[in-house]
């Protein structure tokens, strides 16, 4: 009796996983239908990693017009400097008395520099527990990230939004200018899930044909 229950449960789990995978594939294919700009504004969730990652993402954000609003920046809880850089950048954008259209949020850091790979999986899962409610609340039109570990749980949460049929979020990944011949770990993972995957050097575009290469953009 208990054996047939066991097989029943196993089939159920297998079926659920199959449905999730099929949903993921369907969602990933739907990029051309996803045009959030048509409604007049694009809400962006910006993942700001530490150090140079933040500098690069701010250079990208500087180029985007005011249509990309509101902007929700997400940083790791142990990051002390990115918030200052973000606030300095945003205050330079404000014209006259218009209220600032941005927020800053913190989630647990997925991985510290030199942290072992195995413990990184655990800390990333922990970050996911924070990312899912945050992303489900913000419902961005687009996620912009450039490689810090912080982006993995956030991108996973936005994929989940799509899989559950709640919202199709555009996933835009810009690999750091540091990456000339090889992708970062986040890049290797998100290459398969991003809607637009930018690389900044020709050799990478050749190795990763689905990527977008339009020269150096930071």
């Amino acid at each position, binding site marked *: 009796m208990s054996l047939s229950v066991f097989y029943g449960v196993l089939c159920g789990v297998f079926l659920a996983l199959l449905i999730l995978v099929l949903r993921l594939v369907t969602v990933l294919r739907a990029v051309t239908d996803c045009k959030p700009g048509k409604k007049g504004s*694009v809400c962006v969730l910006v993942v700001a990693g530490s150090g*140079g990652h933040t*500098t690069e993402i701010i250079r*990208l954000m500087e180029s985007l017009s005011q249509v990309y609003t509101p902007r929700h920046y997400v940083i790791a809880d142990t990051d002390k400097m990115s918030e*200052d850089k973000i606030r300095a950048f945003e205050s330079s954008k404000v014209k006259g008395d218009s209220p600032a259209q941005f927020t800053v949020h913190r989630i647990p850091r997925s991985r510290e520099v*030199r942290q072992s790979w195995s413990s990184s999986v655990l800390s990333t899962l922990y970050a996911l527990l924070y990312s899912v409610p945050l992303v489900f609340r913000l419902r961005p039109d687009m996620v912009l990230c450039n490689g810090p570990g912080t982006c993995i749980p956030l991108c996973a949460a936005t994929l989940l939004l799509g899989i559950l049929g709640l919202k199709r979020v555009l996933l835009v990944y810009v690999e750091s200018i540091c990456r000339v011949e090889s992708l970062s770990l986040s890049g290797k993972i998100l290459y398969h899930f991003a809607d637009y995957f930018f690389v900044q050097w020709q050799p990478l575009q050749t190795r990763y044909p689905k990527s977008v290469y339009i020269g150096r953009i930071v």
Partner: protein
Amino acid sequence: MNTSTMNSVFVTVGSTCFDDLIASMTSDEVVKALVDRGYTDVVLQVGRGSFVPDPQSCPGLRLEAFRFKESIAENIQLADLIISHAGAGSCLEALGAGKPLLVVVNDKLMDNHQVELAKQLQADSHLLYCTCSTLSQTLRDMDLSTLRPFLRGQPQKFASFMDKAVGLV
């Protein structure tokens, strides 16, 4: 051609900890190499390093050291040579200011991806790179006149692409 008698070097490690570089900068061989090339002043930005050298650490050179500043743009502008860790932000800031740049790669980092960028930019003659162990030799042998200007990246291309992608145009 810089005819001033004040030749200054600005050393930056960005937001990282790079004790080996800071220690190398205060070592006898490096100090001698700098003095022999006519440098008179050194400013060390040590970031999260475990120690901040005191101003007496480089006899023969005027030394200033600090951890962080809101902006190092002024330090970069005043420098005649920039010695930097291989972080992209620091490199781009130095190259963007048109200053000669010597990048020191930290070979203790886990997967040293930073060396890829340094190699490419050296191949394109925008900077020179070395490690802490080859720093003094590089300072002795380097020919900064071979360096070529670095053109800034174009984020506006990213913006145009994204405007089309999201359906704004």
